[in-house]
């Protein structure tokens, strides 16, 4: 009887000491990534589309009519620098409210990670692959523009200097020069978004906030009167998008 009691006490001790700080333990979870969108501090959903109501840093009034982008390679980095790279991707289609909640197919060991990151768009290796679901969404980039896929399609309208509505197509792709049979690539324009330390629990929800105003602000103040359409073959514009994109995404609420 005494022996049983001691065993019980030891079990209790082991159970109570199994905190979530070690991602290497065998208990795994499937976190949910929730993508939310803002214009500065104002929430943006598809119901806000098609109305000219946002002002960018340049003072241009604009509307959002279509917004979808791809993120890939969600990576969990432990305190010891070990990377758990999922190798998957998700099309966030704000227009049609698809992909706003993403649950990776791979389970993640619970615990605290020093950093969680993802790639905006695809790295060059992944961008060269054939994705039937993205083809079905016609998300491709033509071969003469380097092939692969859009990183983002952000369409809308702005008021030009005559207060007339004009369309803009802020489409982010892999920057390309010499469109044609032998395009060249001046620099990579996908980028890594670091969310920082996150503790993964069984039911954790991780909000990824996108401040859309940043696409037009920092470090390049975007003048829609100058840069509005036909931006895919414009490598300088693509590099500006890459630079401005660095501050678009941030970690929002983490619900354990």
């Amino acid at each position, binding site marked *: 009887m005494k022996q049983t009691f001691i065993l019980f006490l030891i079990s209790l001790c082991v159970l109570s000491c199994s905190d979530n700080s070690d991602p290497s333990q065998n208990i795994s979870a499937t976190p949910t990534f929730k993508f939310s969108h803002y214009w500065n501090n104002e929430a943006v959903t598809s119901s806000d589309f098609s109305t000219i109501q946002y002002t960018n840093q340049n003072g241009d009034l604009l509307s959002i*009519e279509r917004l979808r982008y791809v993120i890939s390679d969600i990576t969990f980095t432990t305190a010891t620098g070990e990377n758990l790279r999922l190798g998957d991707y998700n099309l966030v289609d704000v227009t049609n409210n698809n992909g706003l909640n993403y649950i990776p197919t791979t389970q993640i060991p619970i615990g605290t990670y020093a950093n969680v990151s993802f790639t905006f768009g695809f790295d060059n290796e992944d961008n060269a692959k*054939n994705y039937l679901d993205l083809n*079905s969404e016609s998300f491709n980039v*033509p071969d003469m523009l380097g092939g692969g896929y859009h990183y983002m399609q952000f369409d809308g309208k702005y008021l030009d200097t005559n207060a007339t509505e004009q*369309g803009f197509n802020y489409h982010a792709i892999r920057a390309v020069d010499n469109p044609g049979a032998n395009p060249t690539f001046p620099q990579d324009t996908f980028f890594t978004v670091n969310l920082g330390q996150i503790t993964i629990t069984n039911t954790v929800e991780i909000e990824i906030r996108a401040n859309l105003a940043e696409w037009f602000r920092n470090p390049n103040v975007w003048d829609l009167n100058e840069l509005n359409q*036909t931006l895919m073959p414009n490598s300088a514009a693509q590099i500006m998008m890459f630079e401005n994109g660095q501050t678009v995404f941030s970690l929002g609420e983490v619900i354990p």
Partner: protein
Amino acid sequence: MKLKLHHTIIIMLFFLNCSNEDMGYEPTPLVLNIPQVFAENIIAPVIPANNPMTVEGVALGKRLFFDTILSSDNSKACVSCHSPQNAFTDSSPTSAGVDGVFGSRNSMPLFNLAWNYNERFAWDGKELSLERQAEEPVQNPIELHSNWDDAIVRLQSHPEYPELFRLAFNTNAITKELTTKAIAQFERTLISANSKFDRYTLGQSSLTAQELNGLDLFLREDKGDCFHCHGNPNNPLWTTNDFHNNGLDTTFSDLGLGAITGDPNDNGKFKTPSLRNLSFTAPYMHDGRFNTLDEVINHYSEGLQNSPTIDPLMKKINEGGVQLSNQEKQDLKAFLLTLSDPSFISNLEFQN
């Protein structure tokens, strides 16, 4: 003994209750033959779980599609406005129903419908499945002008249809739902994937210099920029099946999607049709206003009309469009014609 008799009666009752059903019979499952160019590039077709494809269901659907029995005066059928020779549309801007009244929309061509992933059908997207789409023309006063109850009575009293429904759905009780399910099954078999461009994609054919230049114009954002709405060589559907206002009018007599959603931001938006089989599907646009492909290309080149809901993908609206030269227009047209599939319109499987 008493218990045994009781069981026997229950079993007999069970069989009597099922007298209209063919015990043990099951329709023959049919797996769609997915073309290589689709299998290698796009995701699987949409087959509703409550309407699986069967050999007998497709055969019944085909018979119904070509049969005038669904019209009020036995004068027209689905095929009257959706002719195989025209890639299942017809050659007039709008079509006359059984009473000779013309509608306001161009008959839509029918092919590759199982790959319409958003499952919004018709120019204005009002039909949310192929089965539901098949309901509407039968009872529309300016189409077959029938009454579904009357149509079901005609089918039920027909010498052959009850048996065809039994073979397709394992029941003699004909309903509107089963009728439209059969038609939808047949329509899902209308697959077009054997154009010159498909063979080019598969490495089985080559394109001329003019056709290749036309493809280049189609894909260039600073030229045609057609691909953002009509897809690209990696999407052999040649449509996004999305809805756009492509700059046809400054004001709208037909609101299109806007009349369905009630959202004024959708006014003037219509389904983007596939560019396949343009050789057979003139006239073009939702109201059949353009008789030739040349007129269509001219529209996008210099004929755009501005309106509050014009799609932001439309370019150089102030100049009327993308300003292609005459040679570029001819090249673009040459490419577009490579997307036509003569074997589709001559396929005996799709003819009466």
